[in-house]
């Protein structure tokens, strides 16, 4: 029993879930955290720039992650075999700019007809029901579709929903979007709190599919190629 309790403590002790890579630091929530901590550290007399703080945090987190990986290998294997993993990461960092999944179908005139936007009632419950969208695991999968650093997460979700729509005789192109909106207090982000599209994936009736880039993103991508 003592060994089990010790294993629980060692494995549950807080640690970075994975290495902090560039993609992780680019997320608005991480950027905001970095800026707030830099401000606070300046107040305490530590005059690190954001980049310096970022480098220090990355190297500390990497050392912690690597060191812990060795230390917890045996107790983690034991607890995994028992099925009692110890990942108690619950609302650790509130997502300041959550991206919600929005599903639409393109009509013949080219206009988009929305099927649902996560967090709101379905506009076509005969296609995708509210009861399905209310399932907490569906919300969690769609959260990771937006948060994941795997670029294929959005196409995978889009293909699945396209399959559901095709089964219900929907024929137009299916458009899947990730729509970002800041949820911080209006005093910080302004009363408007506008929504902006983070990504768009389109699946055409003939099965072709592609990422749809808006003009600013097209320009950024061209610039990166040069």
């Amino acid at each position: 029993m003592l060994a089990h309790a010790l294993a629980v403590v060692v494995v549950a002790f807080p640690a970075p879930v994975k290495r902090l890579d560039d993609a992780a630091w680019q997320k608005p929530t991480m950027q905001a955290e970095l800026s707030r901590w830099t401000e606070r550290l300046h107040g305490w007399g530590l005059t690190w720039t954001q980049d310096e703080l970022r480098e220090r945090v990355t190297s500390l987190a990497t050392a912690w992650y690597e060191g812990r990986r060795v230390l917890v290998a045996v107790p983690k294997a034991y607890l995994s075999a028992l099925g009692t993993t110890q990942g108690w990461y619950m609302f650790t960092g509130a997502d300041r700019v959550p991206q919600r999944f929005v599903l639409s179908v393109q009509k013949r005139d080219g206009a988009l007809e929305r099927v649902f936007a996560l967090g709101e009632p379905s506009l076509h419950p005969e296609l995708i029901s509210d009861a399905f969208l209310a399932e907490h695991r569906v919300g969690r999968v769609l959260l990771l579709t937006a948060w994941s650093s795997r670029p294929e997460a959005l196409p995978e979700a889009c293909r699945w929903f396209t399959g559901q729509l095709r089964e219900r005789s929907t024929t137009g192109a299916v458009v899947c979007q990730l729509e970002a909106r800041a949820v911080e207090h209006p005093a910080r982000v302004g009363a408007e709190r506008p929504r902006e599209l983070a990504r768009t994936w389109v699946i055409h009736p003939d099965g072709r599919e592609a990422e749809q880039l808006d003009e600013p993103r097209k320009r950024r991508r061209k610039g990166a190629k040069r």
Partner: protein
Amino acid sequence: MKRWFGRRFDGWVERSSALEGATALACTRVLVALTLLWLTLPLLLSEAGRQTVRYVFCDVAWGGYRELPNSWFVQLLGGARPEVIAGLLGTASLAGLFLLVGLFARPAALVAAVCSHAALTQNPDATGAGDALLAVCLLVLVVGDSSATWSWDARRRTGSFFAPAEVAAWPRLLAIFQLTVMYVATGLQKLVATAWTPLDGFSALYQILQSPHMARYPDWVPTHGWLVGPLALGTAVTLLFELGFWSVLVWPRLRPAFAALGVVLHLGIALTLKVGAFSWLTLSLYPLLFPERLASLGESLGESLAQRFGKRARSGESAP
């Protein structure tokens, strides 16, 4: 120092080897069983549940959205296909029914643990603290004699459903320890995010309750400006509760206060956020904080129920 450790260790061994009233563990068994059924039955019986099973738990080859890293057990059963997942969930539900009435409770808990774990943790994108806690609760019911009283097992053994009984204390102590580790670990994790601290005005709940993925009413918070203050207070209290929960191990007299606060906290989570069974499972472990009180309560309640049903049974026998 050696002597101090020796005394502590002896005291700990004595405490964990002790026997105590079985009612607290029986309460946890009933609550965990109800939660398990609440979790699994809708996935089997409703159209939305079956659609969720296909989307979340099945491999892309069988109607899911991505390739899943199937466990050896699921592979042995034929892969993450709808009928395999439904079979696992059905077996877990049946085991949940056995647990609920306290019939073959230990094997039932083991079957429920194996089947629910295999089905619900198939997809790493969709599993979380709730599933981990379900495994912990079922492990406690495997190692502890949770059907010593208030169960069909007790009826088979003693002739009375409510027969008072004594069980080993250590499974309960292990469960309280696990609950404490869970709270403190999650509290420590939160300290890295400014939103959980005064650095960002304790704004975590204000932001979380607008999450389109997890909040039940994401548009409600920004339209009710007066909520900013109460939610900041809620954020601070949540963090202090989690970080301070270890004190229930050291000062048992604090348990009622922490339990009351915990009930409010978890009911709040269940009402405002979509986090599955997490809140109900956590609350299922709370009876284990009060073994003596529940033992005496269970004994007196059991006696009055036995008398009442006994009388009815006797009057039923004598009726023409």
